[in-house]
């Protein structure tokens, strides 16, 4: 962390450091999680080469069992991605000199909108999962 004396471990120490530090640390933590997921995504998609039957049965096992715990991880991943995107937009605006005086308010507004969009996305994605549950 820039000019910091607590290092990466210090990112997890949010107490008494304010919302700005929380935003700063979570942006980096969420970024690392997303990069790790990106390579997991590459790995899963590589199974396309094994053919339709194998790939579909793999995705079905992640979605409808026995490994449907991955749905919980997907929901957590959505949280991380929507958080990171909303905070990223705020940072871009701040870098352009916009909203600097109200950066805390902007953080809450952008994150609130992102969480609403995330809930909408999860709702519609869930409907799709339910529609395929009986297949």
């Amino acid at each position: 962390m820039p000019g910091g004396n607590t290092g990466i471990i210090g990112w997890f120490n949010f107490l008494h450091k304010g919302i700005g530090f929380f935003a700063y640390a979570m942006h980096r933590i969420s970024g690392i999680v997303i990069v790790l997921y990106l390579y997991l995504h590459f790995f899963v998609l590589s199974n396309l080469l094994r053919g339709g039957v194998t790939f579909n049965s793999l995705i079905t096992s992640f979605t409808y069992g026995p490994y449907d715990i991955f749905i919980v991880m997907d929901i957590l991943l959505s949280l991380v991605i929507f958080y990171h995107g909303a905070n990223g937009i705020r940072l871009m605006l701040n870098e352009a000199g916009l909203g600097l005086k109200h950066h805390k308010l902007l953080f809450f507004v952008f994150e609130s909108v992102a969480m609403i969009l995330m809930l909408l996305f999860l709702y519609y994605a869930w409907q799709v999962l339910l529609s395929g549950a009986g297949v």
Partner: protein
Amino acid sequence: MMSNMNMKSEGTINKKARSMGSIQWLFQAATGAFIIFFLGVHLYVAHINGGSPVELFDTVVGNLSNPWWLAFFLVFLWIVTYHGLNGLKGIIYETGISTRGRKGVSWAIMGVYIVSIIYGTVLSLVVAQMTIP
């Protein structure tokens, strides 16, 4: 701790303390803006309008066999991988490593990026040629 010297505002790192150069930061912001659009489309196509997960193979192969979707996903792949790895490089720089260490990290990240996009591109092109059973 972040001090006023390091932070233009809370959550925004000033230019002196920034782990990336100005050009890299600009690329990071620009690719971030693109990703918001690309990811929005990707989430809609893959999770809302993509049909049942039980038949996902057909959906993916069907999409990638369309040259426009193939181009879309290839550009998405190149941009999102750049954004992710460049961000990771910035985080590593923030740990305060030496100039020599930074050069090593920079080369390593560049190598990982090249390997990743070659692998992803070849995978996409091969899948685009597959047939739906």
